[in-house]
C-alpha cells in the first residue's frame, strides 16, 4: 500500500437478504490512480458489494465514504445521485447499453446532467441558444475522444446493439467514463472476451488509471487481468473478506488457494 489518500472507504459493509448474509463485515479501501480488484469464487458477494456502492442496494450495516469535492456517505444517497454528485460510475456484468440508440448517443446520454444544465433544463436548448450548442459540441468532442481510445469512431452512428460483443464491452466502459467519474466500478469487464481483446482491455484499464488518474474497482474472474494490472487485491469468500494485499502476496495466500481450489482443510492446516 502506498501513501495516497483513500478515495473510497468501505467500512464494515454487511448486506443481509432475509436470512441470507450476502456480504458480511467487509472493509477495504480504494485509492485514486490505483486498480483495486475484488476477486472470489461465484456467489462470494462481489457484485453485491458493487450494488451497495452504486446505490442499487441499501446496505444493512456499514459506512461507504466517498471523497470528492466533499465527503459523501453513499449508503445515504439515492441511486442516481451517486453517479451525479459522488461521481461513481459503473458497468454491468451483463452488458447494459441502450441497444437501439447509436454509439454516439450512448456516450451523450452519459453526459446528461452536464448537458441538461447547459440546455437550461431544455429551455435554452429549445430556443437553440449558442450556450447549449457550444456545450453539445464539447460533449461530442469528449465522446469522439473516447471513441478514438476504444477504436469505435467508424461505428459511431450504428445502433449499439449491433456491435460485436467485445466492442459493446469497451463501449460500456467508455460510456461510464463519459460521466467523468472519480471512481469507476467494473463488473467482470473481461467476461466473454478472447485473449487478444482481453489484452486490449488491460491496456485500456491501465490508461484509465494512469492517464485519467481515477480510482478503479474491478471485479474479475480472469486472473491474467487481475494479476497483471491490479495494484491491490481484495478476496471475498462466502461474503467475508479472507485476504487482502498486493497481487503477488495474494497468489501465495493459503486461504485464497483453499477458497479457489477447494483443497481440504487438513492439507493446508496440517
Amino acid at each position: 500500500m502506498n501513501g495516497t489518500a483513500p478515495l473510497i472507504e468501505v467500512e464494515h459493509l454487511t448486506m443481509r437478504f432475509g436470512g441470507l448474509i450476502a456480504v458480511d463485515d467487509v472493509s477495504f479501501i480504494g485509492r485514486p490512480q490505483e486498480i483495486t480488484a475484488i476477486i472470489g469464487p461465484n456467489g462470494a458477494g462481489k457484485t453485491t458489494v458493487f450494488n451497495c456502492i452504486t446505490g442499487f442496494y441499501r446496505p444493512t450495516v456499514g459506512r461507504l465514504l466517498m471523497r470528492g469535492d466533499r465527503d459523501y456517505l453513499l449508503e445515504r444517497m439515492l441511486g442516481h445521485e451517486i453517479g451525479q454528485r459522488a461521481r461513481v460510475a459503473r458497468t454491468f456484468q451483463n452488458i447494459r447499453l441502450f441497444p437501439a440508440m447509436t454509439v454516439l448517443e450512448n456516450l451523450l446520454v452519459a453526459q446528461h446532467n452536464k448537458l441538461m444544465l447547459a440546455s437550461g433544463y431544455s429551455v435554452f436548448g429549445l430556443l437553440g441558444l449558442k450556450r447549449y450548442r457550444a456545450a453539445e459540441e464539447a460533449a461530442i468532442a469528449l465522446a469522439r475522444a473516447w471513441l478514438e481510445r476504444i477504436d469505435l469512431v467508424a461505428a459511431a452512428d450504428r445502433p449499439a446493439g449491433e456491435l460485436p460483443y467485445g466492442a459493446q464491452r469497451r463501449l460500456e466502459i467508455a460510456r461510464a467514463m463519459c460521466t467523468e467519474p472519480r471512481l469507476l466500478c467494473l463488473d467482470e469487464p473481461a467476461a466473454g472476451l478472447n485473449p487478444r481483446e482481453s489484452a486490449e482491455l488491460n491496456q485500456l484499464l491501465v490508461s484509465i488509471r494512469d492517464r485519467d488518474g481515477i480510482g478503479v474497482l474491478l471485479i474479475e474472474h480472469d486472473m491474467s487481468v487481475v494479476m497483471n494490472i491490479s495494484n491491490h487485491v481484495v478476496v471475498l469468500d462466502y461474503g467475508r473478506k479472507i485476504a487482502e494485499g498486493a497481487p503477488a502476496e495474494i497468489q501465495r495466500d493459503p486461504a485464497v488457494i483453499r477458497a479457489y481450489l477447494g483443497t481440504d482443510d487438513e492439507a493446508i492446516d496440517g
Partner: protein
Amino acid sequence: MDPRLPRMLKDAALTVLVAAALGIFIVGFRTVDVGSRTGLSFDYHFVDLGVALIVIFFGRLGLSLAATGLRWPAIALGIAMIAAGASPMKLPSGFLHWFVTLGGVLLVIRAIWPWADQAIVAAARTPTGRVIDQIGTRWLGWLLLGLAIVMPFTPFADQKTMDLGVLILTYVMLGWGLNIVVGLAGLLDLGYVAFYAVGAYTYALLSTQHGLGFWVVLPLAGMLAASFGVLLGFPVLRLRGDYLAIVTLGFGEIIRLVILNWFDLTNGPAGIGSIPGPTLFGAVFAETAPPGKQTVSEMLGIPFHGIHRLIFLYYIILLLALITNIFTQRMRRLPVGRAWEALREDETACKALGINPTNTKLTAFAVGAMFAGFAGSYFAAKQRFISPESFTFIESAIILAIVVLGGMGSQIGVVLAAVLLIGLPEWFRDLGNYRMLAFGIAMVLIMVFRPRGLIGHREPSIRLHPVAPHPVKSGGSG
C-alpha cells in the same frame, strides 16, 4: 395428385368442424320475440352457416396450399371465391357476398405475398429503387405536409372530406403527443384520453362561464393538463410496464367518472353545450354576429359560407399538430429527449449514469399530457358540445393503436397509421357495422406484415459522420 393433398383436406375438414361447433350457436340460430303468448321462438340461419363453412373449408385448404408452395392452385381457389362472392347468385344476406369475396382476396394476397415480397426487396436494390427509397424517407413528410396545406383548395374539399381531414389531424396530433410518452419514453399509458378530457372541459367551462376566448384558454388548458400529468405521475412512475399501464387505465376512468358525477361543475352526462368556436382576430364564424362582435365574412368582405369555419378549424388543427411535431423533433435532439429514449431502453443503466429516472419520466408525462390538453381544448371548440361519452377508454385505445401500428417513436408512422385507422373506417361507413371488421383486419395485416409498425426504422438524433450520398444538412450541430 399431390401426396400432401389428403392431409390438407383432412385439416380443412377439421377446421370446418371446429367452426361449425362454434358457429351453430352464434350464426346458426337466433331467438326471436314473437309476442306475449308464446314468448321466444327460433329463427334458423342454416344457409348462412353453410355458406360460411364452405368458405372456411376452401379458405383453409387454400392457405395450406399456399403454405406448401402450391401457389397456383391457391390463387385459382381465391379467384373462384372472389368470383362466387361477386356473382349475382342469391345468398340470404349482402354480408355473405362480402365475406366470400374478402376470403378470396385474403387467400390471393397470401398466395402471391412471397413473390410480392421478393419483388419489393429486389426493386429496393436497383438504383431507381434506392432513389425512390431515399425520396420516401426524406421527402415523404414534406410531401404529406404540402398535401395537407393545399387540401382545402382542391376540388374534393367538400364538407365530408374536410370533416374527415379535421378528424384525422386531431388523431395525428394526439398520436404525436402520446408518442412522446409511449414511443420515446417507453411508458405504456392507457389513460391518455384523461388529459384530452381535462383540456376539453377546461375550455368548455372557462368559455361558457367566464367568457374567455379560445386563444387565451388554449395555453391554460395545456398547462392544466400538464399539471394533471405531473399529479398522476408522481405516485405512479415508480411502477414499470404492466403495472403502470393498469394505473393509467384507472386514472383515465377516474377522470371520466368524476366528470360524469360532478354535476355542479360539469353538468354530468348531459354535457356542456353552445361552446363558442375559435375566433380569427376577434371575428367569429357565423352568419350573424353576436352583439359587439364582427363576423369573419364582414371583416374580409366575402359572402358567408359554412365551409369557411371548417377550413379555419382545419388549419388550426394542422398548426397545432405541426407545433406538436416540431416540438417533439427538437426535444428528441436535446438531452431530455435522449434521456427519454435511454430510459425506454434501460432504466437501470440510466440510474447508473446519474440520470434521475423519476424527473425524466415526469417531463415526458407532462409534455405528452400538455399536447393532449391542447387537442382537447380544440376538440371542445370544434364540437361546440362535449359530454363524458367522448372520453371513453376506446379513445385511449385507438390513440395507442395509432402509435404502436405507426411504429413506436416514428413521427411519419403516426400519420400513416392515423390515416389508415381513422380514415378507412370513415370511408367504409357504407359497410355499416362491418367496418369494425375492416378495422380489425387492417390491424392484423399490419401486425403480420410489419410487426415493428409501419415505419420501424429509427433515425439517430445526432450523427458523427454525415450520411454518405447527401451533403451535410446545416444546423445538424455536428
